[in-house]
């Protein structure tokens, strides 16, 4: 019998416990969660905050009865030598396998006044991390600190109901980890359109209840300050027990720490140099570890994931780089910018497939591009149609229509050249004498040459309509 103790009460712990039971794990499974309630769907908290979702609708399905669940219980120490976990309420839990799924806590930016003590947020300041953060907002404007995905989602959600919102972001444009300036202009316009005031390239310099002072001296009224400034992996117990910690608890392809009996998954774990940040990734790791622990041993390889920021009514997808970025190893980029239409797309291609990118503002393009990226399928030849959702039908065969000007220096149309051909000018030099085409800057020579080839190949010497014989 192998006893598994899972530390953490979030979605990663929840999924792992459920799968262990499902896969017939023979030993006891214990989940130790610090929050007072069982695991819930953290990613939907924004919808609770803006009132579109009730807090009790966040709950994840109840775990099977076989799982022993401790809620509101903190782990105070891990004794790896004795293979026990000590809890804040004085219990000692033995384990054969320990899984750290401690998640992450909000990063509090170093702004004077935000904290009244270590980890204690000042009055009016909150993160959007736990269900407790979703209690009704105080009266007055909301200041969102941070313009990454979470900040954009939060500002978008709050502004729906007419709440006065200001967003402060130190980078020059929103979501700079995922979007270029041109792309970020689109969600910026969405937010501005709902009345959100954007303070880009600005930092909060000071907070006192009721107001935020920016680094340029501007003062923003703030009934509530929402921290959307990223997260920090919860690694205290791992660190204290001597496990390797970098950005998160370092794990290998079997999601193992340096101690083969201790694993880590979800937002607290660092795998292949990357710390997780999405619930999908946490679930993926939970699934993988459940298989590993139940003898279906298979190394964990992160799958392709798209990021779909929650901006209801507006479509956006971010495609993180699939694999490491090797400079000079891509086929280049293709991008679309439609300011008036609120559309943007940028794809980095590698080997004719999508390596990374983002698509904003076009539901059909978001769907089509996501599908190609997730399946790692080759992109079509007509990338414009892919990015605009157009039908890809074009009126012609790629050549110039007869009435188009071929030689701009001398104002010679394709029709004039064809007429000259049918009047006996059967090579470039003769066409140049007859029409002056190619005798200016010479740019059109390639087109005239192609016309010669086409007409000669057609073997067609009948006069074009309206030609002078």
């Amino acid at each position, binding site marked *: 019998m192998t006893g598994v103790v899972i530390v953490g009460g979030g979605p990663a712990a929840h999924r792992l416990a459920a799968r262990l039971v499902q896969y017939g794990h023979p030993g006891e499974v214990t989940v130790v969660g610090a929050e007072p309630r069982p695991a819930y769907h953290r990613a939907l908290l924004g919808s609770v905050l803006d009132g579109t979702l009730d807090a009790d609708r966040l709950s994840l399905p109840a775990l099977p009865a076989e799982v022993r669940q401790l809620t509101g219980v903190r782990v105070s120490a891990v004794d790896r030598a004795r293979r026990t976990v000590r809890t804040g309420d004085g219990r000692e839990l033995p384990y054969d396998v320990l899984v750290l799924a401690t998640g992450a806590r909000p990063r509090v930016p170093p702004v004077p006044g935000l904290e009244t003590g270590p980890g204690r947020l000042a009055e009016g300041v909150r993160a959007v991390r736990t269900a407790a953060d979703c209690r009704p907002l105080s009266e007055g404007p909301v200041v969102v600190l941070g313009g990454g995905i979470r900040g954009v989602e939060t500002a978008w959600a709050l502004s729906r109901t007419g709440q006065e919102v200001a967003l402060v972001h130190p980078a020059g444009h929103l979501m700079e980890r995922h979007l270029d300036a041109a792309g970020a202009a689109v969600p910026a316009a969405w937010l501005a359109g709902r009345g959100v005031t954007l303070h880009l390239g600005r930092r909060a310099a000071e907070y006192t209840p009721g107001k935020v002072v920016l680094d340029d001296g501007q003062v923003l009224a703030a009934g509530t300050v929402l921290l959307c400034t990223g997260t920090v992996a919860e690694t205290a117990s791992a660190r204290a027990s001597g496990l390797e910690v970098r950005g998160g608890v370092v794990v290998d392809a079997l999601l193992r720490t340096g101690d083969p009996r201790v694993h880590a998954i979800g937002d607290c774990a660092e795998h292949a140099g990357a710390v997780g940040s999405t619930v999908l990734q946490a679930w993926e790791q939970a699934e993988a570890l459940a298989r590993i622990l139940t003898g279906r041993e298979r190394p964990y390889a992160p799958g392709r994931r798209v990021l779909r920021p929650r901006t209801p009514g507006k479509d956006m997808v971010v495609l993180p780089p699939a694999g490491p970025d090797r400079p000079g190893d891509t086929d280049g980029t293709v991008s679309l910018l439609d300011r008036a*239409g609120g559309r943007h797309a940028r794809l980095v291609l590698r080997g004719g497939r999508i390596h990374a990118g983002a698509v904003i503002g076009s539901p059909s393009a978001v769907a089509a591009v996501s599908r190609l990226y997730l399946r790692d399928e080759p992109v079509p030849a007509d990338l*414009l149609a892919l990015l605009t959702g*157009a039908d890809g039908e074009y009126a*012609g*065969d790629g*050549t110039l229509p007869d009435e188009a000007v071929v030689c701009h220096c001398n104002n010679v149309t394709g029709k004039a050249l064809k007429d000259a051909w049918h009047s006996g000018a059967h090579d470039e030099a003769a066409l140049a004498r007859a029409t002056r085409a190619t005798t200016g800057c010479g740019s059109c020579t390639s*087109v005239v040459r192609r016309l010669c080839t086409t007409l000669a190949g057609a073997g067609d010497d009948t006069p074009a309509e309206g030609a002078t014989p």
Partner: protein
Amino acid sequence: MTTRTLVVAGHGMVGHRLVEEMLTHDRHGRWRVVVLGEEPRAAYDRVALSSLLDGATPDDLALAGPDVLGDGRLRLSPGTRVTGVDRRARTVTCDDGTETGYDALVLATGSRPFVPPVPGHDLPGCFVYRTVEDVAAIRAAAVPGREAVVVGGGLLGLEAANGLRLLGMRPRVVEMAPWLMAQQIDEGGGRVLAGAVERLGVGVHCSSALHAVGAGPDGRADRVELADGTVLDAALVVFAAGVRPRDELAAPLGLERGERGGFLVDGWCRTADEYIWAIGECAAVEGRCHGLVVPGLRMAETVARQLVGEGGQPFAGADGSAKLKLLGVEVAGFGDAHARAPGAIEYVREDRRAGTYAKVVLAADGRTLLGGVLAGDTRAYPVLRGLTGRELTASPDELLAGTTGEGPPRAR
């Protein structure tokens, strides 16, 4: 039928196109054409001026062949500048004292290089880049192995820099705009262009304003000072910072000028005086001057059609399409290259590894081509330029591949 006299003031590329059009289309010999050109030689291909530093001779650039020069209807007087016009008597006076009567007068006086009025701009060692004589003077003054500065990073400035390079100098280009050829191409194209130009050994200083030209002990220009305090050694300075219309006859003639200079003319290139037209860089067509040759050629054609009684079309305006081809550097901008049209959609393909950048600007319908920028690979330029203002005939990706412009037609 009496023969009428057309006097053309100026024999540049545009004045010459007017001459050619008149000789070709005046089938009944109703016009005699008198051309009074200030330059000491007949019209030549000014666009190809730089080829003089790459082995060409002025004769190679000459536009008028023996058939034109020998035409009995044409009298050409190079080295003759028009100094005055009597609009009532319909005569022009020249600097050699001669007087010529006209039934139609076409001003094709072109433009002069703009030299920023900074201290030292007129020192020995400072040059402009417009005429065969300017190029000869630069060639004579060039010091191989020494630095030179070209003020202006547009089409002409880059041509001049390449010319200096061919003369063995080490040129640097100083440009006020944030990137090279900013009128014709966008930032992405400018990035590719700057990289390629630098690989040729030409230094690039963008977003840089000229502060002064400094003199050495011999009183000749030996350095250029920028507004940010940078000092660049320069044994030679070439100004290629744009042009200003040659419209000094406007005041004595009592003709109106455009807001930014140039003889004010209507869409038919006619001034307020029904006997006087203006074409090319000296003309402000409905108030707007055009600094490239192709619009000037269209103006010449418009006026010729009127004079020979064919009616024709008014000048339809012209885009700023331009292509630069210097050893290994190819860039082009055409149509609405900066996507200024309301609702314009920009579609960009960039491959930094290959050093190529291509932008296609489409109308809000996503089908009509408005313009674009090509850098590093301009094979698609002729077809895309021809399609500008029209519906795409294939996907931009296919058009940009450039395969629709040359070679045998695609199998379909």
